[in-house]
């Protein structure tokens, strides 16, 4: 042991030295009159790795809003974007960096509910307001008073879509299909099952798939052979689009009711004609006849070459909500910003009217949409 004593001492010193390389001082200057409120806001998003397509849409939404907010001049936000690669540990490290090294006043993100479950408690304990724009699992804002979200949970969206579909198509027996290895799709499925049971539908079969699967023929063939009136599918759009396409190709023509994850122009892009008749409930309706929405869609398409999906829209609104709260708070102070956020009421965004409820969760009305003629339209 003595032989290694020196080596261990050196390694330990190196470790301590690394650890004790200091934090920057937190600068909380009061805002002089006439000057915009300056604040650093952190973003945790999936930039590389398996969920990058979703992270990209979210980050784009933030950046678009950033340009608008800074141009307006009431506040000036410095956005610090960190990559979580979709792993909870990386998200935690990113959060720690943003909170302590960058001294951000608030955090937007992270993308996945699994990441938020790790990052949320830390942000809450550090007194940093954090807002999820894409977390839809249960138990998110209950983590603590600094945790917010503006993404409509599946528990609100799914009853709306299933309810309307059952009424319109007189559904009696259904098949359920979901991704069992992802928190989002699993929570969505839990809600679908609950709603189906409540509406006294006969569940013919429950099939599962895993992320990254390219081939769903086995599950779909099994479902098709049981002849359901409809298929309820909880998936993210990458898998969802493929599932739809393969289902239609093998002759499964019954209505598909999708969870939140299906609400994306990408689904129509991936599935093409197969997407006809897809029903989703969502706060985001990109073709709404509303000037705000139209302006946002046009601007986004011009900047990024594709139409914005729900992820982008929610991120965009979230940023504006954050900026408004910052303005209301009057200064870049974490506690004040938190209070201002909690007081957000009837904010008019591209998703419609938005407020936080007492638990900082979403108060929004879902639209039920159906794909007709290659576009999402209101389902009546």
């Amino acid at each position, binding site marked *: 042991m003595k032989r290694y004593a020196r080596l261990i001492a050196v390694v330990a010193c190196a470790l301590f030295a690394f650890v004790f390389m200091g934090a920057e001082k937190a600068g909380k200057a009061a805002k002089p009159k006439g000057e915009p409120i300056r604040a650093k806001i952190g973003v945790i998003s999936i930039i*590389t790795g*398996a*969920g*990058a*397509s979703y*992270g*990209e849409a979210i980050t784009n939404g933030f950046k678009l809003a950033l340009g608008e907010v800074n141009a307006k001049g009431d506040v000036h936000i410095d956005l610090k974007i960190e990559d979580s690669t979709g792993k909870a540990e990386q998200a935690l490290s990113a959060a720690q960096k943003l909170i302590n090294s960058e001294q951000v006043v608030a955090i937007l993100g992270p993308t996945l509910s699994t990441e938020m479950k790790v990052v949320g408690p830390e942000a809450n304990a550090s007194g940093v307001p954090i807002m999820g724009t894409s977390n839809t699992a249960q138990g998110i804002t209950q983590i603590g008073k600094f945790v917010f979200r503006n993404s409509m949970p599946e528990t609100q969206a799914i009853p709306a879509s299933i309810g309307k579909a059952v009424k319109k198509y007189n559904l009696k027996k259904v098949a359920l299909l979901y991704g*069992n290895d992802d928190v989002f799709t699993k929570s969505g499925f839990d809600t679908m099952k609950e709603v189906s049971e409540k509406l006294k539908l006969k569940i013919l079969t429950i*099939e*599962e*798939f*895993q992320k*990254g*699967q*390219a*081939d769903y*023929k*086995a*599950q779909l*063939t*099994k479902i*098709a*052979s049981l002849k359901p009136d409809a298929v309820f599918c909880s998936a993210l759009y*990458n898998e969802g*689009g*493929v599932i739809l*396409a*393969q289902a239609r*190709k*093998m*002759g499964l023509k019954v209505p598909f009711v999708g969870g939140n994850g299906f609400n994306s122009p*990408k689904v129509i*892009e*991936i599935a093409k004609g197969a997407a006809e008749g897809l029903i989703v409930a969502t706060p985001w309706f990109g073709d709404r006849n509303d000037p705000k929405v139209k302006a946002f869609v046009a601007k986004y398409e011009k900047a990024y070459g594709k139409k914005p999906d729900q992820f982008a829209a929610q991120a965009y609104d979230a940023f504006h909500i954050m900026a408004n709260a910052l303005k209301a708070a009057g200064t870049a102070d974490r506690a004040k910003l938190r209070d201002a956020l909690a007081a957000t009421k009837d904010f008019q965004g591209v998703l419609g009217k938005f407020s936080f409820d007492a638990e900082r969760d979403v108060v929004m009305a879902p639209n039920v949409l159906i794909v007709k003629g290659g576009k999402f339209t209101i389902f009546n």
Partner: protein
Amino acid sequence: MFLEQLINGVTLGSIYAIVALGYTLVFGVLDIINMAHGEIFMFGAFVGLLVVSKAGAPLPVAFLGAVVVTAAMGLLLERLALRPLRGRPGASHLASLISTIGVSILLENLAHKLFGAGNHLFETPFAEISFKVGPVTVYLVQVVILFISLLLMGGLALWLSRSRAGKALRATAENLETAGLLGVDTNRMITATVVIASAMGGVAGVLVGMAFNYINNQIGLSMGLKGLAIIIFGGMGSVYGAMAGGLILGLSETFVVAYGSSGYRDAIAFVAIILILLVRPQGLFGQAPAEARR
């Protein structure tokens, strides 16, 4: 439904078989598992996609493009990441394994940079064509995939057993030193093996695009793992083992989902390996235990 699932299983299985062949060839000759094989397969799929959709060329050109690119990648892999480790003191098999892992991480992220995240549509012109055989609907795509797979597997088996180069490759796989003594240019053989294995991965990539219509930069990982399971099951270094193993895995995955619980689909591959390793470690077609236990 049984017949349709059977066809699903066979289509899936033949693609798995081709991927597994790539692994088994390299293992047979180099005694290492090329962890970058899955990513090379993924690149093959993307090259095929680019040829078909961006260049608008017909499908055979897609195969050609994929083969050329993946063969080149195999060449680079062998020269830069594998050869420097051969015969070096201190270089265990683990070092080569880690080297290929490094390449796979690099390729996966490079693909993300080059092609973007998310699913990309792979259009086959004859995707919709199908015909009924009795009560069953068979798609032309499935027939083409099966045909190409059989052609490839048959061609490879024939080449290995009949041609001089093929025999030299088998000799190299059997015993590197002895083959060298007998006048085989082992370095060239090894390079050729890696190139051929990679090219097969490229073909499999295009086939996957045709079969499932969507590819993304993550397909290399899961396919890679399955390929590994197959060669263990079938016997590492055995060509027939890879073919049989691929087919069996494709069928069992499909039938587990069809008649059992779809939640355990991915676990099937691993349960199979564990069982086979306990019962018959050399795999179905592998050599006798004494030599197979490396």
